[in-house]
């Protein structure tokens, strides 16, 4: 009786204490970087109802770019396989939403989900064939898939024959804002999760030496495919929000320039890190939305030079430089 009583007492005490303390422990275990990103996301989410329309537009475009950066970070940043044609997923997602909304009249949010599935399926198809090969072949295969997609879309009457699909769904800027916010938040959570524990260790081994990782029993092909499918899905979903925001899908959605922007964001920010894609999105997208009107070619020239310098001399991007020279900042920038 005494034993049962003490067990009950302990159980009750545990139940009373656990919820707040586990939450607090969980929050502490996130680490300062994830906490910081979480706070920024919470502020962005909370600001939603009181934002003026101009800021809505700015933030939606920024978050679409950030979502693309986190998406390409999942495959290129985590594994080192350069995905040159990442825009193909964004474009496929864009057309999935546009087609679903115009031909079947589905709700745009369902269109975003369908776009995510389209992107993931496409990534599965390309990934099964090419992820077994070395990095350069993968880069080329993704690039030509993106180009082939432009030609296929431009020649298909059901997809507007190259002149695109236009639709008008009314003023839905709030829904769009929270759709891309949710996507971005889940990507950041996923990135955080992937960099920890077994998967994170496996990834680090894979990036340093693929053969060695294979030899110690990591299922390298499955790990790469898993990340690529997730990456394709998120890129597709973010691309569909872009289309929804623009109320139209054109073959221009497959423009190589988007691929290059996505890649530049993670190279500049820091590949395979949690905060790098965010920093890269700020560096690439904010000047584009503010200074672009002055000199359209100026920004890509600067970004091209930055990419060369960072690739050759400062691998690790902005996050890598700060972590190298300011050891105290390491905890805050993962």
């Amino acid at each position, binding site marked *: 009786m005494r034993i049962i009583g003490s067990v009950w007492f302990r159980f009750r005490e545990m139940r009373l204490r656990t919820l707040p303390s586990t939450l607090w422990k969980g929050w502490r275990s996130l680490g300062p970087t994830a906490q910081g990103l979480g706070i920024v996301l919470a502020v962005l989410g909370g600001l939603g109802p009181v934002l003026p329309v101009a800021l809505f537009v700015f933030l939606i475009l920024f978050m679409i770019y950030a979502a693309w950066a986190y998406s390409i970070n999942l495959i290129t940043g985590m594994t080192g396989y350069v995905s040159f044609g990442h825009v193909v997923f964004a474009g496929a997602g864009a057309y999935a939403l546009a087609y679903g909304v115009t031909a079947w009249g589905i709700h745009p949010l369902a269109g975003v989900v369908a776009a995510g599935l389209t992107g993931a399926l496409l990534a599965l198809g390309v990934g099964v064939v090419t992820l077994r*090969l070395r990095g350069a072949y993968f880069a080329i295969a993704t690039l030509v898939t993106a180009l082939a997609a432009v030609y296929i879309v431009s*020649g298909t009457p059901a997809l507007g024959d190259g002149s695109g699909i236009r639709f008008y769904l009314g003023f839905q800027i709030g829904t769009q804002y929270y759709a891309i916010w949710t996507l971005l938040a889940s990507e950041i959570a996923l990135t955080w999760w992937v960099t920890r524990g077994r998967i994170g260790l496996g990834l680090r081994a894979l990036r340093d030496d693929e053969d060695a990782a294979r030899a110690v029993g990591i299922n390298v092909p499955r790990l790469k495919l898993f990340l690529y499918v997730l990456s394709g899905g998120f890129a597709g979903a973010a691309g569909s929000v872009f289309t929804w925001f623009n109320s139209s899908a054109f073959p221009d959605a497959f423009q190589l320039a988007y691929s290059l922007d996505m890649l530049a964001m993670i190279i500049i920010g820091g590949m395979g890190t949690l905060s790098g894609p965010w920093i890269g999105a700020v560096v690439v997208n904010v000047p584009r939305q503010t200074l672009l009107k002055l000199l359209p070619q100026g920004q890509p020239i600067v970004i*091209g030079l930055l990419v*060369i310098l960072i*690739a050759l001399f400062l691998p690790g991007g902005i996050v890598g430089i700060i972590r190298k020279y300011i050891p105290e900042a390491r905890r805050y920038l993962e």
Partner: protein
Amino acid sequence: MADPATLVASLVYGILLGVVFAAIAHGLNLIWGVTKVVNAAHGEFIMLGAYGAYFLNLAWGLDPLLAALIDAALGMIVGVAFYFAFLHRELRGKERIGHQTEMVTLVATFGLALFLVNVTTLAWSMSPVGLRYNPGNAVLGGVTVPLGGVYVGIASLGIIAATHVFLTRTYLGNAVRAYSQDITAAKLMGVNPTTVAALATGLGFAMTMAGGALLTVYLRVGIRPDIGHLYAPISFVIVVLGGPGKMWGSLVGGITVGVLIDVLQVFIPTEFAYAAAFLLVIPVLALAPEGILR
């Protein structure tokens, strides 16, 4: 349905086009095969070669064949400079090219591509320019073809044959091939790795830029700073088809792609013909990742 005459005509056009594609892809093939590095800015150097031909034509009225010679000399200089600026730091002292090197060079040359496209757009604008080169027509196998295409095709074959002779019949060429097969063994035989890699890169660039000059004959819509976005992927496809480092692979791959694009257009819309040529890479990578040549 297509009649035989149309089919034969598109076959002849396809072969002529494919030979020029082969010359362009050959530069990429040589660099990839020897240094194991993929130059993501390949298309931008094709574009610079094409602009070179245009400006030489504008200044001195040179035709693309002569311009290709000057482009090749320029390409040699640019290529050696490119080697020391981009590849030397990564390749120096390495006896096996790993994943890390591959990624760093891909990303750095990608930055170069972004830089070059936008600098040339700023300098020469996006509006296309063209040059006049029309030496008349000839009849080839019952098909009337423009003589310009024939000359350019012969020049392309000449470039590929000259490379073959250089690589198999000269001391330096043998050193290049030895380096591409086994860096350690080549060094033991007294080959200086830096000289050989720089030379191969320079030659690759010379061919790329000369190929860009020859290509101007086929650029009906004109030369624009972004033509590399089409012709670089075509070169990648050709090299993957033939297998990187296999010198006849460029010719086989080039003619395959050229014929495929021109013959398929008889049956299906142009857009799908191009898409099919690009997507050809996926089954080839799945079934024969070393290329279709044994």
